[in-house]
Each structure stands twice: as structure tokens, then as C-alpha cells.
């Protein structure tokens, strides 16, 4: 049996609800974008229903702690193809077994969700570390990133709490959306033009002191290095090359 859903989290949870209602047996879950009609297996389209999705989510929350709810959310944000099937299988496993079943690291779904959630959290942590704001001439701090996973929803709280008194934008260049903090709330935004402030052509948009502080940071980065302990392999392990184009000190 193939279930087709729209790719959203609500759709996935609705699929779980439908499975329990229909008791379909072995089910393969595919998003609409990847669906190819199969001659041998019947397919069923899931209509995303907010109320049903909420019931499933609340049901999960009653059986697991907040940390596992976050893991499921992170696994979904990973946007990996196989994760939809894993989350689907995981939800069914949790509902079919008594409370505490999420601790069974012997089960393949539990382990996969835990490992993928760990990868997403690590990417989020790296983003918190590697985001380098640049001050524009009108006092706004801007940064463009392209993380491996869709971690922007996870970054909202950290940056809102930390930079409570300055306006900032974090923009995901690959996924074409971002967040803006306007001293009161955080809003989702979309920009028509992808601006890369690091390019020389755009430098007139920057605050006058911005280049000085970028230079000071590069100086500092060079001064803290101990040449006698050079270890490029370790350095690249911690700061993978794909992030270098966004780091001021590497330019």
C-alpha cells in the first residue's frame, strides 16, 4: 500500500491517523513530489487535516517527553528523503507499545530518529557559531547562510534572546526564506534579490566601521594561531570547507 501526502509535517501526522483508522498493514509513505504510480501496489491519497494531525501530536506528547517531541521535529526538518518513512514507522511503534518505548535503542526507527535529530542539532549549533552578522548603513545586522538542513526555525529563540536590542536578519539562501527581528517579534520574510554583502560591489550598503571590524577580526584570528601546532586536518574537521565562504576570517 502506498500513501501519498503533501510533504508537510501535518500531512505526515494525518497519514499516521489514517493508518490507525484503516489498518492498512505494510505502508510506504511518499510525498506528492516523488510519487510514481506503481502497477502492483494500490495507492491512497492523504488529505491533510489539521484536527487529525493535532490529535496525533498530542497523543505522542502524552507518551513521550518534550525532548523526544523535539527529536521528531528535528528529524522532519532534516528534509532527508528516508526520514518521512522513519518518522511514520516511529510514530506507529510508539502508539503500539506502552509508554517508555522510545528508550529502546535496539529498535531501528528509534535509533534512526535519534541519530538524524543529532545531525540536525549539530548543524543548528554550527549555524549559531558560524553566522557572522554584518552591519548595514541603516543599523540592521544581516547574514546569509545555506545550512545542510532547514534549521532556521530552530535558530529563532537563540538569536531573539541574545540580540534583543538590535534589528537582525538571517536569510537562508538555498531555501529562499529568512527571519527578521524588528525589536519586538521575529517574522518570516522572503526577499526577491539574494544579496551577498560580502561581495565588493555591495560594500556601499555597509556601515562605515564594518570593514574596520572585519579587519580587526581577521587580525585577531591570525594572532591566536600557534604556528608550531599547525594541524590542517583537525582544522578542516571542525570547520568544514563548505562553510568557509561565509566566514569573514577565511576570505
Amino acid at each position, binding site marked *: 500500500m502506498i500513501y501519498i501526502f503533501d510533504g508537510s509535517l501535518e500531512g505526515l501526522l494525518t497519514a499516521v491517523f489514517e493508518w490507525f483508522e484503516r489498518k492498512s498493514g505494510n505502508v510506504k509513505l511518499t510525498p506528492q513530489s516523488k510519487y510514481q504510480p506503481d502497477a502492483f501496489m494500490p495507492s491512497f491519497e492523504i488529505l491533510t487535516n489539521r484536527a487529525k494531525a493535532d490529535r496525533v501530536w498530542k497523543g505522542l506528547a502524552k507518551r513521550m517527553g518534550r525532548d523526544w517531541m523535539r527529536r521528531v521535529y528535528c528529524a522532519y526538518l532534516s528534509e532527508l528523503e528516508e526520514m518521512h518513512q522513519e518518522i511514520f514507522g516511529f510514530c506507529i511503534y510508539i502508539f503500539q507499545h506502552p509508554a517508555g518505548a522510545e528508550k529502546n535503542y535496539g*529498535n531501528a526507527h528509534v535509533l534512526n530518529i535519534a541519530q538524524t535529530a543529532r545531525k540536525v542539532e549539530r548543524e543548528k549549533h554550527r549555524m549559531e557559531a558560524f553566522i557572522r552578522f554584518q552591519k548595514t548603513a541603516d543599523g540592521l545586522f544581516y547574514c546569509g547562510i545555506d545550512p545542510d538542513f532547514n534549521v532556521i526555525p530552530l535558530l529563532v529563540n*537563540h538569536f531573539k534572546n*541574545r540580540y534583543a536590542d538590535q534589528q537582525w536578519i538571517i536569510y537562508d539562501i538555498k531555501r529562499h526564506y529568512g527571519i527578521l527581528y524588528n525589536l519586538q517579534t521575529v517574522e518570516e520574510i522572503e526577499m526577491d534579490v539574494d544579496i551577498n554583502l560580502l561581495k565588493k560591489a555591495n560594500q556601499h550598503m555597509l556601515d562605515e566601521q564594518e570593514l574596520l571590524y572585519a579587519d580587526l577580526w581577521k587580525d585577531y*584570528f591570525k*594572532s591566536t594561531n600557534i604556528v608550531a601546532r599547525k594541524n590542517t586536518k583537525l582544522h578542516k574537521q571542525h570547520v568544514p570547507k563548505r562553510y568557509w565562504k561565509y*566566514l569573514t576570517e577565511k576570505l
Partner: protein
Amino acid sequence: MSERLREKLNILADAAKYDVSCSSSGSDRKNTNKGVGNGHKSGICHTYTEDGRCVSLLKILFTNHCIFDCAYCVSRKSNDIERAAFTVDEVVELTMNFYRRNYIEGLFLSSGIFKNADFTMERLLRVVKKLRLEQNYNGYIHLKTIPGASDELITEAGLYADRMSINLEMPTEAGLKLLAPEKSHQDVIKPLGFVKNQIIQFKEEKKLIKSVPKFVPAGQSTQMVIGATPETDKEIMHTAAAFYKNFSLKRVYYSGYIPISNDSRMPILGTQPPLLRENRLYQTDWLMRFYGFDVRELLNDANPHLDTDIDPKLSWALRNMHHFPIDINTADYKTILRVPGIGVGSAQKIVQARKFGKLYIHQLKKIGIAYNRAKHFIICADTPYQLKDFQSHQIKGFILAESQSKYLKTPSEQLLLF
């Protein structure tokens, strides 16, 4: 103006890099006053230097003028180098601008001692106060305690800083006397003890009165230089264990000596820094803090030096084969932690997973233990029955044969033929 600032930053950041403490964790300071910044409980490493160490703080000396002449220090009085000093405002501006751009987690402020300890400490205190009170800065601050400063200055500094530390520098008193006759371990022990008692006192008061301010919430740490003087690994780790116990330190750092002079009392310029030894010492430190080992089990009179070709945990296990093999499905958590190849995370997962059924080899591999290493020490539900009992050196041979360790590439001593 900005040229002079860049010059000062180059000189004073360069001099501060030998203090390897880089942690920005342990503080849960919140941004409650609509200011800027907060602490992050596990710290954030914003970038890494080319030698692989993390850079999370703006680590600078307030000035590298110093009245002392310690042979191991690049800023010693008799060394002919460029000297500079920041002003309080310059440090505050630099910190705030770097922080707002998310370059750093906070400030690490140290200083050479100019005029006297109190004068220096008072300057550092001014920087910290300005950041917290005028700039509404709630990020991380690591402040070095100047040995010899008065109790009042240290107490006031503790109200604003997240971590305070002083460096032991040499692991033994004899070593210190050899290279810095004007200093002694007592100069370090007295302030460490004072701050420790203040931390305890503030915590006790906080239980009764809610409005008691935070005092050094991320605790204290210290640093020892490895390889400048001929102490054994046993003396180094026993000192570290004593300091962890007596002063409730959060961390002890071990910094391999980078030769900075041709002084005959220490390794001369061009000597390789002892990176492998430093790595083994950190592994021993972790075993003491997270794996429940006592320092005497790892290093004692019979074994005063750590093995270079294998890590301390494996070394202990091979010397104590009578404890193994353990049954992974029945052994308690503390015993599982001692198996080479199983870390804290895996041990916790094993204990949780086995409530649901016996664990098999393929499950253990998926959980993430180093099975090739651990298999010599554990029995799972489907371990094949073994007739032969292997000796320690044979097991060591098996493990080293499969090992991908980078340290094995360096050639060891000549083979013994007889």
C-alpha cells in the same frame, strides 16, 4: 587611530594565546534587562584556529608590560618585545562590536602585572564593570585572578565575571622555583581557596534570599605547562587530582610547552611541542572526571608514565584483565564504562536498551561502540564461544593491527631482537 588599535590587538592577542582555556560554557546568564547577550549552557565555538583549537572568546591581555621575569613566559620583563596596553574603553568597544556580529561568545581578559597586583586587578575590574553595568552586556566573561590582589577586588570582580582562573604554570613547586624564583604555588592556592569559599557562601545565601547576585557561576579553572620541566605524568596528574578535589575546579588545562627562548633550563627553540603527551594527559583527565577512575589506578609508582601507543583506558584494561570479560546484558553501568571502546553516551544507551531485551552484536555496533576494540572485553547474547584465552600483549597486538590511529605513523624505538 584604527591602525594603532590593530597594532595593539595583534600584540596583545598574540601574547594571550598561550593560555589555552577556551571554554564558554557553564553560564546560564539570561538577557533579562533588554540588553545584549546571554550565556549558552554548553558554550559555542565560533571558529577554530589552524592548529585545531577552538576560538570562542576574545582572548587578550590588557597589557603585556610585566614586572616579573618568569623564564617560560613570552612577556617576561627581560624579553625584548613590543609592549602595548589597551585603554578600558578600547577593550569595551572591541568586545561589544565583536559580540554584536556574533564573532565571539564573550571576553577572556588577562594581563601582565604592571605596577602591582592591586593596580592591575582594579583596571581589569573597571573593564568588566563597564561591560555589565553601562553596556548591559550579558555574555560570557572569563577573568584571570591576579595573584596578590586584595580580597575586596577579587570579590567584586566575581560578581560580574562568569569564570575566574589562575594558572599553576609548573606542576610542582620545585619546577616553578627553577624557572620563576619570585613566585610560588602558595600565590595561586590562596586566591583559588578564597574564591572557592566565596562561591560556596554565595550559593548558600542564595538558597535563603532570592536576590543574592550570581558569583562566578561557571566556576574556576587552572592550567599547567607540560614539558618545560622534567616532571613525570604521575606527578602532573596527581597534582591535577589534588586541585580538582581541594578547590572544586571545573577544569584543569594541560598546555604543551612551545619553546620561546634558548634558555638552557627548558627545551630550546625548534623542539617539537609534546602534542601526543598532552593528548594522553587529557584522556587521563577525562577518565578521572567522567568514567569514575581514581588517578592512582591509572598512574602510580609502578606506572609513572602514560603509554604513548595506546590510550590510558585500554592500558588500564590490559593491566587488569581479571575484571574481564563482562556480560553486557547484566553488568552494572559503572563496569560497562570501563570497557575500552565504550563511551559515556553508548553506556547510557546500552543500559536503557537492554530493558527491552537482550542486546546482540549488530545492535551494539549500531549504537556506536568501537566493537573491534570492545569485543575482547565483553560478552553479548550472540558472542561466539571462545576456547582460547588470550594474553594482554596478544590482545594489544590485535587492537594495534586494526588501529587507524595517526600516532602509529610515527616510528617507535628499535625492535628488540632478543
